[in-house]
């Protein structure tokens, strides 16, 4: 079980958190419809995700804590967590 250091609450066990997927994925359509995406681009965005080995920026939500979204940089092999910050500051999705 991971130990995730929530910038708002401190170190908490993984079972307080929910996983939110790849934080480096850029939203097709601009995230607010301002950059119209083709059907192909949008389908890629929805269904084709990378499963990287190594360092990975990912969203976590502190579900049973402050309920804020976080971006954690984690090694998907060793599970080492290099940084955790508020999603308001990081992530490009």
């Amino acid at each position, binding site marked *: 079980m991971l130990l995730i250091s929530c910038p708002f609450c401190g170190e908490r066990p993984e079972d307080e958190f929910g996983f939110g997927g790849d934080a480096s994925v850029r939203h097709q359509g601009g995230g607010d419809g*301002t950059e119209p995406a083709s059907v192909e681009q949008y389908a890629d965005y929805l269904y084709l995700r990378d499963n990287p080995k190594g360092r990975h920026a990912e969203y976590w939500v502190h579900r049973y804590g402050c309920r804020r979204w976080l971006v954690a940089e984690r090694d998907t092999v060793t599970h*080492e967590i290099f940084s955790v910050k508020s999603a308001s500051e990081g992530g490009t999705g």
Partner: protein
Amino acid sequence: MSGARRIPGAGLLAGAPPVSFCFDGHRHTGVAGESLAAALIANGERVVARSFKYHRPRGVMGIGNEEPGALVTIARPTGDEPNVRATTVELYDGLEARGQNAWPSVRFDLTAVNDVLSPLFPAGFYYKTFMEPVSAWPFYERMIRRIAGLGEVPRVADREIYTSTHAHADILVAGGGAAGLQAALIAARAGARVILADENPWFGLGLLGETATIDGLPAHDWAREVGKELAQFENVTLLKRTSVAGRYEQGFVILCQNLRDAPPAAGDPMPRWRLWKLRVKQTIIATGAIERPLLFANNDRPGVMTTSAAVGYLDRYGVLVGGRIMVAAGDDAAHDAAARLARAGAQVTVVDSRDSGSRIALEAGASVEWRARAVNTRGRAGVTTVRIEGSAGHRWVPADIVATSGGWSPALHLYAQTGGKPVWDDTRQMFIPGTTEQGAVTVGACNGTFDLGAALGEATSAAVKVCEAIRLTAAARSPVAENSHDTAGAGQWSEVRGRKRCFVDIQNDVTVADLDLAVQEGYRSIEHVKRYTTLGMGTDQGKLGNVNGVKAIAEARGEAMSAVGTTRFRPPYVPLPMGVVAAHLSPDQHHPMRRTAAHQLHEAAGCVWLNAGAWLRPQFYRRGGETDLEAVNREVLAVRRNVGLVDVSTLGKIEIAGPDTITFLNRVYTNGWSTLKVGMGRYGLMLREDGIVFDDGVTMRLGEQHFVMSTTSSGAGAVYEWLTMLLETRWRDLRVTLMPVTEQWFAAALAGPKAREVLGRVAEGFEVSNDAFPFMGGRVGRVAGIPARVFRISFSGELSYEINVPADRGEELWTALLDAGRPEEMAPYGLESMGVLRLEKGHFVIGREAEGRTNPYDIGLGRMVSTKKWFVGKEALDFPEMKNPRRRQLVGVVPANKTERLPSSAHLVLPEAPDKVGGSQGWVASMAWSPTLDHDIALALVEGGHARTGERLLAYAPIAGKKVAVDLVAPHFYDPDGGRQSG
């Protein structure tokens, strides 16, 4: 005859009281605290189990957690425990054990005919059997279930007590042998918070019989003294009988502690097992090594055991395992053991594959034959003779025990569980740690260091380093070991002497021949061979057999051990009792149960409860001798004709504030929000990014910049999370703030044609007339003196008001409303009745009709999809498939003959081909008896359903064996124009 006996005065339990126990109906005497295996051996019980597939007799082969064969069922007043390793249960007075997987008993097992039929059970038997024809599967499955297996699953609920605890420490030391004790001592003296765990009742068991001394003391006495010293430290927790079961990332460790084996005395609150969920900064892995069996024909017979186990029973329990002992040796350590066995009075023969070696066994009276090895055994219920291959050729030699020395395998499980990579050391013939693990270090035998002095030195420097890593200064004082030397070698392990009935996995009956076959059939990866042959998949997880399996596969592939490698080590290291995983939680504690503020009033009113997601909700309120259906009918008709009251507190509520809220709502809902006025609400439909219906509900505009959004009960958490994600990651520029307030409010809905009269009696500060308070309006004021938000919205299709008050005033509101409704004899109604009301109206429900693959068009809500603006999921609605006319669409269903009842869980099929495979046209999502219409109604998802109203299908429920002719109709059964709710 086994020739086993007790040696008076020997062992750690000399002087412990005798106890009586029972095995397969035979009453025996043993010693309190010894292992059941020791007691069975001492009493001459050689066959204690039968093997998984072939029902071959199984005796005791090991002495601890590595034991693969001696699995028994312990009969206990709190419920039987199957598959207990006889080597790990401590004897108590009255213990009752049974052999397993045999009929009528493990001694006379009639199903042992499987052994004769073993050519019919080759590697991959299950995969090969479960092929065509499909119709034969049930037969094979019944047959296999009868003859293959371990103990029986208990038929009654376990009444034992279990517990679990969370703990933190600086350093966990796994293993209380010489290295573990030394490391713990260094860390303890440095002031670290240390937990030392060992699976045995004693520390330093590996030091029993050790010829070396430590600081001038016999090695085991030193261990005892260190144990005593450690017990004095306040910063040290000593856990005996505790297995480190799993090591996970970031210092998370699971320990399983055995607190007692005997059944509890009446009123004794001591649990049987405790699960430790531990978070540590550093782990020192000192788990030692496990001796490997040898690979020769019939190496599974009772009486064949590892040499360390054979001598261990003498050293620990004073039990001599046999009268005539053959030691199949290949290193000096085996001669040490043989000497101790000979001194205890056994007639010992050592066959050693080397040219020469230690003379200690010879001097102790054993006969020693060099350049010789054991290659086969005979004996029906245990070994009687052993075949020796020596310089003078082959011969059979009488023996009742064959003690085998196949070298040592460091116990790398904990090291490898978090990703550590074992590598093969060809010189020493063992897998050793190959990479450094973060936050963990291996010391002693599990690191491949078998020399006692070297192991103590290694433990000392590792502990000093670990202390430094947590900023503690430790003194690097290592004790002096004298006469210490590395006696461990690979024994006679270098050659595999047998194929058939040469067992690699004793528990799962995997032979060398099985592994040969798997490789022949093209399985190369050890992970595939493992799953194909079931090698190492038993409860012992291959602690004895896995490295032998790697060797057999390497031989079959003609490759080096290093090319084959090991399978992935996964937690747990030992089987965990199911009870300790559930621990102290009673069934209703596994899942937090939420109750509304009026819970006790519902209870008092005779409600029948329903588990609805995380909530406990009234299903309906029974009066007198009503049946369930009668109660629901009464409640539904009361709402249709008069007025009813329902607790709707579980609906999710999110307060929204900020100048950009309208923009926000326009983006998250499919429909438009720009024209919403203060004091009015609007129904919204929310999609996932893939265009599938996610949630729905009414959002009220309470002020210019103040809104309250209502979500489904089950979606409250997920909707809040999703909306915050959008605001925090994509729409940081929107000036919108969310606050989840579901728990802060109690909500009740008055519904029915008389609802306005009832509300009018208690409303303060707002008008209730239709003009002053129209449909979809929202008002803030007081109800029965309580500050309230009142929303005129309807799920039942009747005139309805949802009244929200602070949660702590929920009971007060509920009581006041029932009082106000007394002239109308207003009664509460429950979730079931609400379901019938919404079904009559044809309202879809998330999770029923919108079931995770449903888009707005499918449920007839295309008009809710704005074409004038962007919203989440809009792009996906442009996917060609989303408007495919053959998608499953929402329709109403009524029985063709209105007096017939619809079957539940029905598929809708074509009347002319009801049994056609793949011929389902769709299914019934919700159905109910409509007391308003006096017949069954249902909502269904039907392929191309919108264009099929008027069609006749069959509602087919194969399990109930029911077929009912039905007509597809529009999904609005009652008041389709909605005049009742808005008038």
